[in-house]
């Protein structure tokens, strides 16, 4: 074994057993700048190899869940698959028929993405908000929903947030896909009926249920939206799609 290979193995051993520690080698590293550079490079390469493998693993998972496309692209199927297909064609039709009438025929998430957009900031201009709420609203307006939630949470620890502010908190939850939290908060606001955003709350509550995959509850709330209410047209369109 060459001297270089010997040093390589020694560094590797040190990096792999760092917790146990090799005091003498650690001292060598502290003394020798060139050796420290080699240790750092070798450590970075080993870390990089692990991180690259994780990237590859995620890509494999992604491709595994998207292999449908490859399946469709491959048009050479054994004859028996066609025979089975013919024999079970009725079952397929029954399956799709069932989906059409009883199942989730439309993709709720897709509809949610299409219809959901955060309500414009209509409370900051009033100027009667605390500094924390104003900061949260500024983050909300810039699309930093997670950070806005952070501010809302911190503020709520020390004070009671108004229903109007809680309405915007719910919209932040919805913007990052935390629909369950939004449903909980919006339902309370709707029952209390003290917010000036009550018509908007009904619309967003319906959307939160949609985003949560509950089409039936979504429909219930959409049906509450009257002709003169906020987003009536959209509610009707959505009702005809779900």
């Amino acid at each position: 074994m060459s001297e270089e290979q010997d040093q390589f193995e020694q560094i590797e051993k040190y990096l792999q057993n760092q917790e146990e520690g090799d005091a003498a080698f650690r001292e060598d590293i502290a003394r020798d700048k060139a050796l420290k550079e080699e240790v750092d490079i070798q450590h970075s390469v080993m870390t990089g190899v692990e991180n690259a493998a994780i990237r590859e693993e995620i890509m494999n998972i992604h491709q595994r869940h998207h292999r449908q496309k490859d399946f469709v692209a491959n048009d050479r199927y054994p004859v028996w698959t066609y025979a089975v297909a013919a024999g079970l064609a009725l079952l397929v039709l029954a399956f799709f028929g069932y989906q059409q009438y009883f199942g989730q025929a439309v993709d709720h998430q897709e509809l949610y993405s299409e219809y959901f957009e955060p309500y414009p900031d209509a409370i900051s201009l009033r100027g009667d908000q605390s500094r924390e709420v104003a900061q949260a609203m500024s983050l909300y307006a810039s699309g930093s929903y997670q950070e806005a939630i952070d501010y809302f949470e911190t503020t709520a620890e020390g004070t009671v947030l108004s229903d109007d502010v809680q309405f915007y908190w719910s919209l932040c939850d919805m913007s990052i896909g935390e629909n369950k939290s939004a449903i909980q908060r919006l339902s309370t606001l709707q029952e209390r009926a003290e917010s000036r955003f009550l018509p908007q709350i009904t619309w967003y509550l319906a959307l939160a249920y949609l985003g949560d995959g509950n089409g039936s509850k979504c429909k219930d709330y959409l049906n509450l939206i009257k002709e003169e209410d906020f987003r009536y047209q959209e509610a009707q369109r959505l009702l005809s799609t779900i």
Partner: protein
Amino acid sequence: MIFWIGPIFGELFYSIDYITVSSKAFNNLTDQEILIRLRSHDRAQQNEAFEAIYLEVYPRVKNFILKKNGTEALSLDLFQDAIIVFFNQVKSGKFQEASTISTYLHGIVHNLWRVHLRNEKKMPRAELSPYEMDLVQDEDRAHVDLGKVMTRLLNELGDGCKQLIQLYYYERKTMQEIKDHFALGSEQTAKNKKYRCMQQLIKLFKSSNITKESILSPEK
């Protein structure tokens, strides 16, 4: 009709398989179980956790990036980066279990996305809030850079060396297993081969455009 029903059947069977697999991973693993798997030294368990996270978080990441006029490829790239950041924070004990994994990862993606915009000069004045700054530290960015650079370098290295290096450093196979895998004469031969492959990789790494900030010291 039969000719187009055949492929549809394939799709149908796949969909059923997909739903079963998804719900299994999604329903069976709580945040706590995911963390236990990530902290284990068992790659199979860690991969199971990655899959559960992918199924739960990636669709939302994709929606978020597409809404911001990004592409699906960018959403996957940022998701891969976010997993690397998260995984290293979990291993080093920096991940505080104050929020759900889903929310936390979304925050990381948001941070990485803003940095991406800034790097692409699409949002030159974009500043990061203190919260965002905290979420992804310099060391995390170094991990992300190393992952990306090494993906490229390993491919430059060729299949044989790439496979050997991954088997030893990622899969944690022993030299005996590597000797058997490559049908080599002895463990020493396997060891020498591994050394030569690593020397090539280190050489490529030193001549790559990696910045000093991305070099990680084991003491960090």
